[in-house]
């Protein structure tokens, strides 16, 4: 993650740097920064290592009960076993697919709705309180209903995920449309743009940062939606794996599931950051953070 940021920043700097700063960023500086990045990474690894070591030691010294906390080595063993049997990969795939499908569906519908509400003020006035009320409704409470409607398979999890993601994206997109700089719209209109072109060339691109922030926030929510669905009724998925392990008092298994979820969330976040950097590379570095 650090490396990406640096490379991106250097790229911007080296293209204009010679003109604006009158010098090229020196190699010393770059090497120094690289080194600092590596040192930071090593320090973080050490920190995690220490925490895991303390955990392991505490269990081995019988300071805490392994029944409740398991221990890193047991968790790793359980992970290796699950990986070897292909079981974990299967669960991860199921949850991942539910989550991505829910996220994409909710995102697409949400962006479209947000766009319509932003463009047609009267429509927004009509549905605004209803949208807020629906968004305020805890979707977790609806999960049993979704299971009832769509069964215990894939569809119900997608529905739960999408129902959460949808509203986040509606509000983000709507906010983006409301904040479009009117001067840009006018300038492009004078250059001869039709209404459709104004939407495509000005409104949509200037909403992108908003849409992205909506999509970014809702990745985690999509995962929660899928997991909640799996907790309530499922035959596969990481959520199912966790609740199943818990019912067998297999604490190590529970932790394997939890860490797996964590890894999925981190991986997705990195993917989105990457996409965001590519699509929003026009923004000044300060606004990017």
């Amino acid at each position: 993650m650090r490396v990406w940021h640096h490379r991106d920043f250097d790229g911007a700097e080296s293209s204009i740097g010679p003109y604006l700063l009158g010098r090229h960023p020196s190699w010393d500086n770059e090497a120094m920064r690289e080194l600092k990045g590596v040192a930071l990474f090593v320090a973080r690894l050490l920190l995690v290592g220490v925490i895991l070591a303390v955990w392991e030691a505490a269990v081995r010294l019988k300071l805490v009960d392994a029944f409740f906390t398991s221990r890193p080595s047991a968790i790793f063993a359980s992970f290796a076993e699950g990986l070897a049997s292909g079981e974990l990969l299967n669960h991860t795939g199921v949850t991942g697919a539910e989550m991505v499908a829910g996220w994409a569906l909710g995102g697409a519908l949400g962006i479209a709705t947000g766009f319509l509400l932003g463009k047609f003020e009267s429509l927004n006035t009509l549905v605004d309180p209803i949208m807020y009320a629906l968004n305020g409704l805890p979707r977790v409470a609806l999960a049993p209903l979704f299971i009832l409607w769509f069964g215990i398979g894939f569809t119900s999890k997608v529905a739960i995920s999408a129902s959460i993601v949808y509203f986040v994206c509606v509000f983000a997109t709507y906010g983006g449309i409301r904040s479009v700089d009117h001067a840009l719209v006018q300038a492009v209109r004078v250059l001869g743009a039709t209404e459709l072109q104004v939407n495509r060339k000005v409104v949509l691109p200037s909403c992108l940062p908003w849409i992205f922030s909506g999509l970014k926030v809702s990745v985690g929510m999509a995962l929660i939606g899928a997991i909640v669905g799996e907790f309530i009724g499922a035959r596969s998925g990481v959520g199912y794996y966790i609740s199943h392990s818990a019912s067998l008092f297999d604490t190590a298994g529970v932790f394997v599931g939890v860490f797996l979820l964590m890894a999925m969330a981190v991986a997705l976040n990195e993917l989105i950051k990457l996409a965001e950097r590519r699509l929003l590379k026009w923004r000044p570095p300060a606004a990017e953070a």
Partner: protein
Amino acid sequence: MIAIELADVRKTFEGRDGRQAVPALAEVSFGVEEGQFVSLVGPSGCGKSTILNLLSGLARPSGGKIAIRGQPLQGVHPDIGYVFQRDTLLPWRTVRENVCLAAELKGVPRAQREPEAMAFIKKVGLTGFEHNYPHELSGGMRKRAELIRTLIKRPSILLMDEPFGALDAQTRYLLQEDLLRMWREGQSTIVFVTHDIGEAIALSDRVLVMSRRPGRLLVDVRVRLPRPRGATDAQSFPEYAEHFQEIWGVLREQLTAL
């Protein structure tokens, strides 16, 4: 030939949410001849920008008539360019993509629009910055890019709303030179809004002085300085000081009389 004609043009901004309606322009009439460079000066809020907005077709007058070459103005006119006071380059497009915008909107294929864009970029000394985003440029460079984004359309009428207001004095001189040069080459008609009396005299054939809000036309000063002239030559003529005094006299009265 008359390029632009305004007859008793009025503009009132309707008060929303129970606020009072604001009269911005009170019966303004003037004509601009083909190829003329006309400046509008006046106290802030006097409706200078409103006149440009009306001429651009982005806003409609509350009363009166606007004609472009004898034809009543309806909506945005393809032959009119408008350079705004604020930066209006699209921040997510590079200089080149911004300059290409007008051609792109018209559906000109990429291969055809690029060479001309590059020629214009070269003309204002932005070569080497084609692929930079607006935020990576200085204020003067952004304004240049904006200028050619409009000029590449070759509008026969160019509206400019304090285009150089936000620039430092030296950069402003350079851009004024650029503008005068391109105006001479392009034979366009220019309506230029500014609050800088010196700038108005230096650039224009005529300076129209407006009253406080609601704006009316007070005097129409014909600038008696020889052409061609550069942006900074004007001050060396004795007429410059006379014009300055005349315009400032009228403006001062408007600004101080309450």
